[in-house]
C-alpha cells in the first residue's frame, strides 16, 4: 500500500511524510465508512421495524394467549406451545394443509407449462410479436383484486361465462367440491405472465447459432427443444419454479376475493385460514391462533427462500 503511494507521489517523500499520509488515509477511510453508514442507517432501522420485527412479533403472538381483551389492552399471557397444539389438533388443519399443497402444486405446474409453451412460441420474431408479448403482461400489472373480481363474476353458476362456454352447470363458488378448482384456475391465469417473462428471458440468452447448427445436423423442432433449450434453460427453470412456489404458497388476495376460503372452508389455505383466524373468526377469532398459522407458513416460505438464495449463489459462483 505505502509503496504504491510513494511511487505515485515521487521518490523524495520521507518516512515521516509517509506515516502522516497513512494516518490521513486511515482517517479518510473511517470518515467514508461513517458516511456510508449514515446513508444506509435509515434502511437498517426500517428493515428492523418492518422485516425483522413482524417476524419476531408474529412468532411471539403465537406463543401468547391473545384474547378479545388483548385487542384493547395489548396485554397477553405467555402460553408456550399451546396454540400450536390447538392448531395441529384442529379438525380443519389436515384439510387446509392439503388445500395449500394442491393449490400450490397444481397452480405451479400449469403456470409453468403454459408459460414455457408461450415463451417457446414467442422466442422468434414475427410481425407484432413484441406487441403481443407486452399485452400478455397486462394481467400481471393489474391489481389482483381487479382480476379476481372479474373471475368471480365469470364463475357465477347461472350467468357466468365459464359455465356457458363449457356447457356445464357447476357451482364453482357455491359447491365445496369445486371452489378450490375455481381459485386454482384463476391463479394459474394470474401466474402465466410471470413464468412467460422469466422463461422468455432465459430462452433469449441461448445463442442462436446452437439452433442453426442443430438444424443443419437434421434436428427437428422437438429435438432442438429437448437437447438445447431445456438443458440450457435449467438455471432459469429453477429460479422460476422456486420463486413461483414462494409466491403461490402465500397467495391471499385471489382466494379471499373469489371464495373467501369457502364455502365451509373448502378452499381455505394456510394464508387465508391464518387471516380468518386473526380477523374474521367470530367466536373463534384469536390473533394468537392466526399468528400460529402465519408462523407455520413463514417457516415453509423461509426454507424455500433460503433454498432459492442458495441456488442463486451457486449460479453466480459457477
Amino acid at each position, binding site marked *: 500500500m505505502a509503496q504504491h503511494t510513494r511511487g505515485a507521489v515521487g521518490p523524495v517523500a520521507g518516512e515521516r511524510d509517509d506515516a502522516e499520509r497513512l494516518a490521513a488515509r486511515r482517517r479518510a477511510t473511517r470518515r467514508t465508512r461513517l*458516511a*456510508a*453508514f*449514515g*446513508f*444506509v442507517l*435509515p*434502511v*437498517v432501522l*426500517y*428493515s428492523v421495524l*418492518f422485516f425483522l420485527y*413482524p*417476524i419476531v*412479533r408474529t412468532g411471539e*403472538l403465537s406463543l401468547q394467549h391473545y384474547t378479545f381483551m388483548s*385487542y384493547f389492552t395489548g396485554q397477553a399471557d405467555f402460553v408456550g406451545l399451546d396454540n400450536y397444539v390447538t392448531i395441529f389438533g384442529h379438525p380443519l388443519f389436515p384439510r387446509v394443509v392439503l388445500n395449500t399443497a394442491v393449490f400450490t402444486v397444481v397452480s405451479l405446474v400449469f403456470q409453468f407449462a403454459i408459460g414455457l409453451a408461450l415463451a417457446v*412460441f414467442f422466442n*422468434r420474431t*414475427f*410481425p*407484432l*410479436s413484441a406487441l*403481443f408479448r*407486452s399485452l*400478455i*403482461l*397486462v394481467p400481471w*400489472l*393489474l*391489481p*389482483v*383484486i*381487479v*382480476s379476481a*373480481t*372479474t373471475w368471480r*363474476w*365469470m364463475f357465477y353458476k*347461472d350467468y357466468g361465462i365459464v359455465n*356457458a362456454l363449457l356447457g356445464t352447470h357447476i357451482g364453482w363458488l357455491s359447491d365445496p367440491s369445486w371452489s378450490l378448482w375455481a381459485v386454482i384456475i384463476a391463479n394459474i*391465469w394470474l401466474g*402465466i405472465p*410471470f413464468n412467460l*417473462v422469466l422463461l422468455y*428471458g432465459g430462452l433469449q440468452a441461448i445463442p442462436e447459432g446452437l439452433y442453426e447448427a442443430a438444424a443443419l445436423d437434421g434436428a427437428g423442432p422437438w429435438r432442438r427443444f429437448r437437447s438445447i433449450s431445456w438443458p440450457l434453460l435449467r438455471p432459469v427453470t429453477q429460479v422460476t419454479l422456486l420463486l413461483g412456489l*414462494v*409466491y403461490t404458497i*402465500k397467495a391471499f*388476495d385471489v382466494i*379471499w376475493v373469489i371464495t373467501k376460503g369457502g364455502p365451509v372452508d373448502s378452499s381455505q389455505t394456510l*394464508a387465508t385460514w*391464518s*387471516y380468518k383466524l386473526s380477523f374474521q373468526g367470530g367466536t373463534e377469532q384469536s*390473533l394468537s391462533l392466526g399468528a400460529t398459522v*402465519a408462523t407455520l407458513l413463514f417457516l415453509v*416460505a*423461509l426454507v424455500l*427462500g433460503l433454498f*432459492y438464495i442458495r441456488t442463486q449463489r451457486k449460479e453466480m459462483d459457477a
Partner: protein
Amino acid sequence: MRPRTGRRWLTTAVGLVLCAGLLFPLYWMVNVSLTKPSDLVRTPPLLLPLDPTLDGYRLALQQNLGALGTSLWISLATVVLVLVIALPAAYGMSKLRAPGTGALMFTFLLAQMVPSVVVVTALFALYKQLGLLNTPFGLVLADSTASVPFAIILLQAFMRTIPDELLEAARIDGAGRLRTFGSIVVPLSRNAVVTAGLFAFLFAWGDFLNAQTLTSGNSITPITLALFRFVGAESTNWNAVMASAVLASIPATVLLVFAQRYVAAGVTAGAVKD
C-alpha cells in the same frame, strides 16, 4: 420469399389467438361493465355489448370516485417514501461500500419471501399499540414494505454501473458525499428511479390486504377495498362493479402504454410480485 412471409403471418395469427385467449377475462370485464343489468342475467351471456350503457360507469364514479382519489395519493406518498429510503441506501451499498451490505442484500432477498399475512398480523398488533390504525401514514408505511427491497436491489445494481472516476472527479471539485449523491448519482440513475417508483406505485395501488386490515369503517378506503366491498353490496349491479374494476385498471394500463420502456426494465430486473 413468398411462402416465408406467408408463414410469418400465420405465426402472427396464432399469436393473436393466444393473446386474445389470455386476455379474454379483461375483455369480459369491459364487456360486462357496458352491459345493461337486464342483459346480465341472460343465458348464454351476450358476447358483445351490442346495446351498451354507461350507467355502470355513472354509478361506479358516483360511489368510488373518492376511493380512486384515495388510492392515488396513498400510492404517490408510498412512492416518495420508498425512494427516500431506497435511494440513499442503494448509494451507500453500491458506491460507499457500507458495512453490512451483504447482510442487507440477504435481508432484502428474504424479505420478499415473507408472507404478507405474517407482516400484517404483526403490524396490526403494533399499530394498535402505537395508535397507527386508520391513519394514512400507517397505511403508507405498510404499503412501502412491498417495494423497498425491490427498489434497493434495482437501484444499487444500476448505481454499480456508474463509473467511480465520475464520483471522484466531483470529490476533487470539492463536492461532499451528499452533494455528489444529490447532483450526480441520483440524476444519473434517473431511469432506474423511474422504474422503481413506477413499481412502488403499482404495488401500492394494488394493495388490498393492508387496507383491509389496518383500516376500518370509511376512514381510508382505497379503490381495491372499495371494489371488494362493492361486490358484497351491489350483487345485482355487476356492470357497476366491473366498471369500478375497469377504473381501477387505468393506472396500470396508462403506465404500460406510456412508460413501457421502464415497465420492461423492471420486469426483467426484478420479476417480483406478491
